[in-house]
């Protein structure tokens, strides 16, 4: 029987993978490694899994991925590079822009220094913790200023504490496009932007393939070495702009998403 190791944190284990686990456990032998209770030891390597699947992005999980990559040829989805770049918002912006994917303009500024564009959204620097986007909307001197509570906490209150803010140019868009890449398959959805309707699933609908977005999705997956991802795009004046990329997408939003992901992992494990 195929052996799959799942690297996960408590939050994802308790909230996001019930159906997925039930399904994959009927097809493969599963070992679950939980970030909050696993002891990572750099000199211990006795894994015999055919594949590892990551559903978390904390520091211990990153070290675990690195260990697997350095000490074995066991495939791991997603890779260290993909996970690391996905959580470092500024770095993935730099590399995706270089690869020719249209991105909303961005700038990394010390607190108190305005970005070089009028309307903006402030996002967190390192997207590593499990937390919902909580927008704080202000209009300052005619400028639209949206901030993610996490980003402000990083600067003002709690750990991690930085002196910097990641600014992204605000793109006014009727729809937000959610694109899921699972191996070679790409799934397309759209929903009202969260600032218009905070209940993101209410307006979400499946849409036909958009070849341009499919191409960007493949390109982003290649540049960042991601096998499993979700991307957010906004559209203004017929131009799409990538605003977010995620390495641990919530595949429950896709019809039979848990089966699609599980079958993809099983196929990769057999190769």
């Amino acid at each position, binding site marked *: 029987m195929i052996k799959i190791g799942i690297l996960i944190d408590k939050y994802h284990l308790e909230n996001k993978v019930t159906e997925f686990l039930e399904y994959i456990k009927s097809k493969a032998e599963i070992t679950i490694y939980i970030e909050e209770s696993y002891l990572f030891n750099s000199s211990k390597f006795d894994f015999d899994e055919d594949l590892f699947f990551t559903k978390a992005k904390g520091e211990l999980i990153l070290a675990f991925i690195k260990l697997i990559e350095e000490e074995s040829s066991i495939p791991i989805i997603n890779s260290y590079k993909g996970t690391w770049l996905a959580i470092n918002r500024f770095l993935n912006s730099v590399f995706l822009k270089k690869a020719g994917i249209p991105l909303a303009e961005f700038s*990394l500024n010390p607190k108190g220094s305005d970005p070089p564009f009028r309307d903006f959204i402030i996002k967190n620097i390192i997207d590593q913790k499990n937390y919902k986007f909580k927008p704080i909307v202000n209009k300052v001197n005619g400028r639209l200023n949206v901030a993610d509570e996490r980003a402000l906490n990083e600067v003002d209150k709690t750990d991690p504490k930085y002196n910097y803010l990641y600014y992204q140019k605000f793109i006014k868009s009727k729809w937000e496009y959610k694109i899921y890449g699972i191996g070679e398959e790409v799934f397309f959805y759209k929903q009202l932007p969260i600032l218009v309707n905070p209940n993101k699933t209410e307006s979400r609908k499946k849409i036909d393939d958009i070849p341009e977005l499919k191409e960007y999705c493949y390109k982003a997956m290649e540049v960042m070495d991601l096998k499993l991802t979700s991307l957010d795009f906004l559209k203004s004046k017929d131009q799409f702009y990538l605003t977010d990329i995620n390495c641990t997408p919530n595949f429950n939003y896709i019809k039979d998403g848990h089966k699609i992901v599980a079958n993809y992992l099983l196929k990769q494990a057999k190769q």
Partner: protein
Amino acid sequence: MNIGILSKRTTMLTGRLKNCLESKGFNISIYTLDNLVINQNLLNQDFYILKSKNLFFLYAGYFLEANGIPVIPKPDISFIQKHRIHSNFLMKKIGLTTPEIYLGTIDTFKKQFSVEDFPFILKPLMGSGSKGVKIIRTLKDLNSKGKTILYLEKFVKGIHYTVYFIGDEICTLIKPPLSDEHVDMKLIETPDDIQDLITKWRNYFNGDLLFGHLDIVREESNNKLYVVDPGSFPEFTNWKCRGSPIENICKLILEKYEYIKKK
């Protein structure tokens, strides 16, 4: 020529580097965390010197490289040395010995460590030098919140060295355990095994590692050398060997830039 220096301070080695480069006729701008804005406006220098390895200087370095502006040392080289997991795996790959490392929450450590496993050294995951470094003799020495992932290294008992290198020149000093670079250290003749270790380390980077240092411990019981901390751009406070560190660093950086430009 316009040169930018990415540094957390404007004084000490950075200040001396600026003076050295200005005396050769170059225009120098220092970017600290107070004035560093990472966007297209940074692309106005011919090249940058990455003095400090704070996350935002590394981001700036990657941004500059992606936009075709040379950065010396390369951001990747600095990052590998700043991030303890990366440096640990890299050392192993090169064939150097490092202490065993452990990651986990305090609860995990409580459940899985026994008294004889101690002592450890607690270190920040991203860091260099002695900041945030503490010896952990028992579980009581660990203070942290429940979910925080802690990084521990097995404590190696022995002689502690700081080994500087600038180009081919190696300068070996004995230092008090867990001390920073600035305490007084005793110069010794570089032992052959340390010389070999530094050569192995430098060779891996194929000419891109112009200078730096390694903190090494020689284990008391078996004489084995453990690398416990690499550093890509030390202050060279304790350089007690031939030549002026600042003049040599200046020279190596300018030579490297000329080499990159020609390529």
